[in-house]
């Protein structure tokens, strides 16, 4: 098993005819993901190396039975595209786009929550990879193999770093979920932790957080109450100065809120081992899995 994406995934890509959209759609297909279609208004009827393009999501869903969407359109069109995919009946929407206006994200989040039909991953995220099954997004799949470590992260490259160290020690992943670095992520740590807890293949969970917000603190509470599997944590941004946005729109220490120290302490307070470097995280995971084996 795995979570969110697998061999049942039927992917439709919004913005498939754009440069990045084309490149990553084909890369995802090459990996084995079932890319059934794409949407670009005005380019319906064309195809991208055999992948049919539609004008609207509703047309794409009718024709292809797509159940997953990946959004690659520029920020000013992204909220609209997410809402269009949801309205068409897509159940899982992965938004890669960075820089979506905060009020758009608020509107999208609350609409999806109210309707209760679709799950949004991202925005501003690298996507989801279930090694050996499906890759939806921009995660470089070559560094990851099938295995029993579930990873959920606010950062893309940091995930690659940790996954790579794990791979060097001979461990693989059930699923890697990048929830994104924006202030209003569609899916939070807690949602993904619950899925990993229920996933038979996942035996250990790595949660990779960073400064800003309180998602890690809430995750710590959730882990204490609902997660029986071992969890290893990492928090980036111990040296980040207050008031500075560290690349991700959501990565900012505001006054005394959102510091890496507070997050690490919240996790450790609930029994989660927190590594101080990505290498240490991988070593902790290896030792916990080794002990279980």
């Amino acid at each position, binding site marked *: 098993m795995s979570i969110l994406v697998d061999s049942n995934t039927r992917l439709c890509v919004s913005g498939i005819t754009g440069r990045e959209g084309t490149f990553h759609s084909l890369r995802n297909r090459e990996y084995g993901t079932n890319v059934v279609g794409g949407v670009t208004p005005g380019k319906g009827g064309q195809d991208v190396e055999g992948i049919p393009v539609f004008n609207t999501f509703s047309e794409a869903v009718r024709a292809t039975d797509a159940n997953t969407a990946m959004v690659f359109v520029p920020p000013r069109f992204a909220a609209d595209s997410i809402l269009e995919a949801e309205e068409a009946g897509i159940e899982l929407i992965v938004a890669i786009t960075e820089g979506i206006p905060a009020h758009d994200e608020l509107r999208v989040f609350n609409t999806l929550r109210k309707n209760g039909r679709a799950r949004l991953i991202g925005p501003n995220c690298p996507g989801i990879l279930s090694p050996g099954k499906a890759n939806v997004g921009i995660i470089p799949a070559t560094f990851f193999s099938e295995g029993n470590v579930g990873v959920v992260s606010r950062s893309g490259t940091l995930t*690659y770093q940790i996954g*790579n160290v794990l791979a060097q020690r001979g461990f693989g992943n059930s699923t890697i979920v990048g929830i994104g670095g924006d202030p209003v992520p569609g899916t939070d740590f807690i949602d993904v932790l619950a899925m990993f807890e229920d996933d038979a293949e996942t035996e250990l969970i790595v949660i990779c957080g960073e400064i800003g917000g309180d998602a890690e603190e809430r995750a710590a509470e959730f882990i204490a109450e609902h997660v029986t599997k071992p969890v290893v944590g990492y928090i980036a941004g111990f040296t980040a100065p207050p008031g500075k946005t*560290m690349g991700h729109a959501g990565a900012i220490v505001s006054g005394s809120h959102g510091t890496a120290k507070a997050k690490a302490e919240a996790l450790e307070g609930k029994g989660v081992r927190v590594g101080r470097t990505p290498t240490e995280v991988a070593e902790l995971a290896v030792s916990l899995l080794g002990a279980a084996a």
Partner: protein
Amino acid sequence: MMPWKEHVARSPGRDCDQARPRLRAGGGRDSDRGMRPPRCNKVPGVDLLEYQGKQLFARHGVPVPDGRLAVSVEEAMAAADDLGYPCVIKAQVQIGGRGKAGGIKLAKDRDEVREHAAAILGMNIRGLTVHELWVEEASEIDAEYYASVVFDRSAKAPLMMLSTKGGMDIEEVAAEDPDAIAKLHVDPLLGFQDFHGRRLAFEAGVDQDVVRPIGEMLGKLYEVFVSEEATLVEVNPLIVTSGSSDDGAARAVRALDAKVTLDENAMFRHSDNAQLRDISGEDPQERMAKERGLTFVKLDGDIGILGNGAGLVMSTLDVVAEAGGSPANFLDAGGGSKAEAITSAVEVILSNPKVKAVLFNIFGGITRCDEVARGLIEAFHQVNPQVPFVVRLDGTNDEEGRRLLADASLPNVIVESTMDGAARRVVELAAGRSAEPAGVMEAPSG
């Protein structure tokens, strides 16, 4: 940038005698532009100056005192003549403690305007030079309240707050007397309703005669928040003016200060607001990086850092600090960086004379390590750096990247195979402790 917390030295024992109007230099609190409302997580953006915030307020019908912008003593005097006396001269800088620093003064007449304007223009308020004055009619103050709309990222909804304890640091109020702040979340799909205003006003315990005008003002502040795509709208103090006992004129409410943060990502929809960005307080190196499209934050140390991806760069800063070093910057070269972008980034990093060594930490996904290597080689040709570079390349095309670097045999470039090893090495080099003579290339062990 601005400080994030500053306690305002004001007597907590506010006098509650509302019969006695007080005349004060407006902007009651020594406003701290970085002050954060309680238990909220701010979303970053473009911070406006007080007068810019008030102009946005006026556009949406939020009552504000009449005022004029002045950039010279002459303009200030003309503005004051126009507004009438007494009036208030207010320094326009994005930093707290303006009043305490002498940047807000009440002027009774023309001579006092001349005197105060001359003193405040050019004044240095905690590192920022005053170039602009806001000349404003003085307000008679009966009571000082606090109101705000903030982007609550935890609740994923706008949070509105109202308190009768205005004119002081709201975080202090929250710590000492949390019940003094009425709060509610507004469903962003529904928007502000009149009952929201009534509920906040009654729960905060505002005077009965201003329940309606305060509710109306809250509705307009919410409108500013949504239609201007703000992430913070704060009024401290929100004042109740003195009514007139002669003709029975009702008391009114006004925003005596304005703190507004706009969402940078939404500026494409607000071309009028895009020009409000204040770059006078920006660090020149940060501005240089921004002009080159790089995500850059200046730090205090002496080790230049370049990486790809915000999380990895943040992590790199931490690992360098763990190894005993002190990073000079955060620089995310982003995904898919081409060689020119890397060359350009090296120039930005080296424009800081404090930098004694540079660490490249690349884990290539979209980014190709060979492009990074080409960029670095080009940078050496163009800039001829005098400090050592430690380079760690992993991921897409890493072997090719390392081979390019080996072939170029650049002076002072050391390749390390792990992130931790690279961090240790760059810390040694910055401290001048390296055992390796300069100019030696290490064979990659990975």
